[in-house]
């Protein structure tokens, strides 16, 4: 057994490892939602260009591709850290989940990473090297690839929340989960709902980024045609995704009541199970020592109705869970509530803007445009907070009900080493972030290239032919009629 002092050091090491994971992950997660969301918008914009041959759409696709590329580079650079970190800091966890995560990670590596990175080169550097059809194909592949990454990561994380399709081999520190049913693992009780929630959250981020920059141009009277069209496309995507996200969140909470009741109880600040309908706490300050929520504003019976569709059926509180298995309450409670609140704000804001766009008054409403310039912070915050709620709410387990976080770290890595790397990450990421903001600002200040400039159509014929035949039948026909000829025809 460990002595008291050793337990204290072990806790320090675990706490530091958790802090490092949280910090590096939250930093990393600033970028993938942008690329996932922008990816969809790029497909729409470039698709519109191919359909209409309107050069404004081409300028849009080119400009947002630049933003996409810088963000993608950040995502890759910070993403490798995450993959390494399972092994460097969480060796026991890696041994425990390796067999289960194996297939998901292999699928991600092979299908998603290669797909994205390979075609990203064509996307960014290939404008004058391949035909428009081939380029569009690359855009679609990159958008699909970035979503595919999310699929496997969320599947793996969902398995940690609601493990399924496995059995445990070995005992004690040598115990590990082995797959018995691949599809049961992939479609574990929470994976589909969580995936939908994550993807919609990313669409909202991507759309709000476009809304913010476009609103800025509109306010400054720059690139007006570009900004109006970008704003409109992003607004439709943002509104649809925001509304869908509310529905998705609701269905997830209902699943949570049966799969992870302790987490739901923490989200809702439910210390005690009371007979009859359970109230929905709108806001308050949970106090775990006194097991109550201070300054609570609550709607009676609503949680019961949302979860069970029955105003009088009680929802389980933390009193039904052994004290040793309680998650922290205050942090998941607050992050969850702010996320939900922000979600409703996005819905309301985009609906108001949509109505005004339809009535033709949107682009004159400067107050609303200024709101959109700054509103972009909201979706980033909501995405991060949602993950904090989901991951802290899972504590004290790293794999729910099976492996405790306290037992999951690398025994050979000391607290001092983790502290050293954590400080280094802090410094490097601060620098990285400053440079990212700086470069992004540069791109935004520079703005899109005006579409009036004559198109550079100097691509060699054999290149077009090669690209076309690789892109298949569709690409070939685009090659013969599109590219230089298509553009020339329009001039």
């Amino acid at each position: 057994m460990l002595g008291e002092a050793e337990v204290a050091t072990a806790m320090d090491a675990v706490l530091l490892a958790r802090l490092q994971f949280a910090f590096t992950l939250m930093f990393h997660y600033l970028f993938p939602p942008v690329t996932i969301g922008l990816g969809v918008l790029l497909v729409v914009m470039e698709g519109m260009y191919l359909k209409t041959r309107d050069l404004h759409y081409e300028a849009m696709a080119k400009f947002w591709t630049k933003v996409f590329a810088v963000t993608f580079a950040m995502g890759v650079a910070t993403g490798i850290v995450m993959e390494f970190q399972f092994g460097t800091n969480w060796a026991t966890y890696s041994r425990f989940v390796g067999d289960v995560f194996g297939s998901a990670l292999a699928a991600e590596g092979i299908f998603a990473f290669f797909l994205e990175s390979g075609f990203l080169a064509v996307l960014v550097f290939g404008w004058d090297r391949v035909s428009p059809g081939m380029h569009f194909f690359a855009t679609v592949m990159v958008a699909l690839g970035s979503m595919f990454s999310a699929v496997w990561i969320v599947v793996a994380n969902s398995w940690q929340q609601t493990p399924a399709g496995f059995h445990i081999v070995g005992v004690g520190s040598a115990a590990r989960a082995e797959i018995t049913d691949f599809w049961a693992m992939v479609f574990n009780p929470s994976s589909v709902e969580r995936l939908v929630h994550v993807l919609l959250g990313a669409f909202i981020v991507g759309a709000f980024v476009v809304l913010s920059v476009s609103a800025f141009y509109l306010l400054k009277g720059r690139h007006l045609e570009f900004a109006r069209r970008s704003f409109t496309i992003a607004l439709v995507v943002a509104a649809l995704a925001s509304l869908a996200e509310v529905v998705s969140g609701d269905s997830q909470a209902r699943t949570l009541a049966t799969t992870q009741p302790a987490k739901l109880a923490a989200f809702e600040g439910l210390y005690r199970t009371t007979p009859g309908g359970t109230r929905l706490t709108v806001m308050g300050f949970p106090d775990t020592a006194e097991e109550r929520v201070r300054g609570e504003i609550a709607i009676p019976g609503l949680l019961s109705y949302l979860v069970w569709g029955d105003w009088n059926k009680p929802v389980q509180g933390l009193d039904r869970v052994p004290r040793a298995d309680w998650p922290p309450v205050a942090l998941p409670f607050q992050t969850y509530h702010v996320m939900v609140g922000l979600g409703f704000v996005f819905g309301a804001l985009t609906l108001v803007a949509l109505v005004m766009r339809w009535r033709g008054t949107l682009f004159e409403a400067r107050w609303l445009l200024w709101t959109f310039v700054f509103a972009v912070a909201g979706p980033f915050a909501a995405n991060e907070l949602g993950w904090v709620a989901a991951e802290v709410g899972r504590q004290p387990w790293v794999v729910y009900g099976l492996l405790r976080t306290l037992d999951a770290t690398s025994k050979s890595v000391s607290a001092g080493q983790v502290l050293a790397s954590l400080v280094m990450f802090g410094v490097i990421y601060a620098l990285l972030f400053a440079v990212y903001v700086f470069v992004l600002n540069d791109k935004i200040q520079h703005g899109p290239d005006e579409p009036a400039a004559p198109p550079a159509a100097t691509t060699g014929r054999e290149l077009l032919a090669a690209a076309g035949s690789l892109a298949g039948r569709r690409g070939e026909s685009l090659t013969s009629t599109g590219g230089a000829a298509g553009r020339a025809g329009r001039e």
Partner: protein
Amino acid sequence: MDLHLFWFALLGVLLTGYAILDGFDLGVGILHLAARRDDERRVLLNAIGPLWDGNEVWLVTFGGALFAAFPRAYAAVFSAFYLPFMLLLFALIFRAVSIEFRSKRESAAWRRFWDGAFFAASTVATFLMGVAVGDSMLGIPIGPDGDYTGGVVDLLRPYALLVGVLAVATFAMHGSIYLHLKTEGELQRRIHGWMWRTFGFFLVAYMLVTVVTLVTVPAATRNFTRLPWAWVVVLLNILAVANIPRAISKGKPLGAFVSSSCTIAALVFLFGVALFPNLLVSSSDPAWSLTIVNAASSEKTLRIMRMIAFLGMPFVAAYTAVVYWVFRGKVELGKFSY
């Protein structure tokens, strides 16, 4: 083929792919400061611009495959090399950032800073990977439960550092040959000189490591009695190395590039032969070594993943080929360049 062997071999393929592909772009980074003018440095960056990102994915996939197929080895290797791998990560991050951000400003000071960062990050990353290979050749103290029991200093052994130097030399040579293929005119003539110098550097390091390995690391050739055909690879390795200067002086840089790729492949292969059937040798007690059997995932998982690999590999090969085809030929600085 035995499942465990299949995954060991596939890891070898991924590592080889990584070393050949990211090898040349790390090499370009190592040589970056040798180019003097801004436009020359831009040519160097754009020679690898569309490709380095995809090349790095081979490392990500290697890491993922190691995690998936041999979780105990993944856990042991990554936690044992904690600080070196953290440094490697910082180097890779810096590298990515400096490639992306150098071109964003015209200022000479800005560009000088990122040029330096790009060079340092590429060199450090390459060196650390070499050190990890060297340490793996020697074995590291692993306890009975698969956890590393040594400290950071135990990893900084002369042999491991020497392999690190070999890695830098190899990638520098590989990168210079690649650059010769991608450039023209005055810059290409100067790069011709780089090829000779880096080859000399490589040759010295290569012979030194070979001799030291044969004399001080008996485990390296332990498997040769059992697998006599491994000598063929040694022979091919020597032929490939010998063909590099021959191809350069005959003015066939593509031949030289293929030869240096074969050299890298042979070195990775010999590294695999030296380890087999271990993934990580325990220097504390051979019985605690992590092997392709005791460190592996279940047969079921290995089988599922083999299916995924078979399904995915044709795609990977296809789109890697597409990208290299689209970006073939000499570097031209254009509107979409760095």
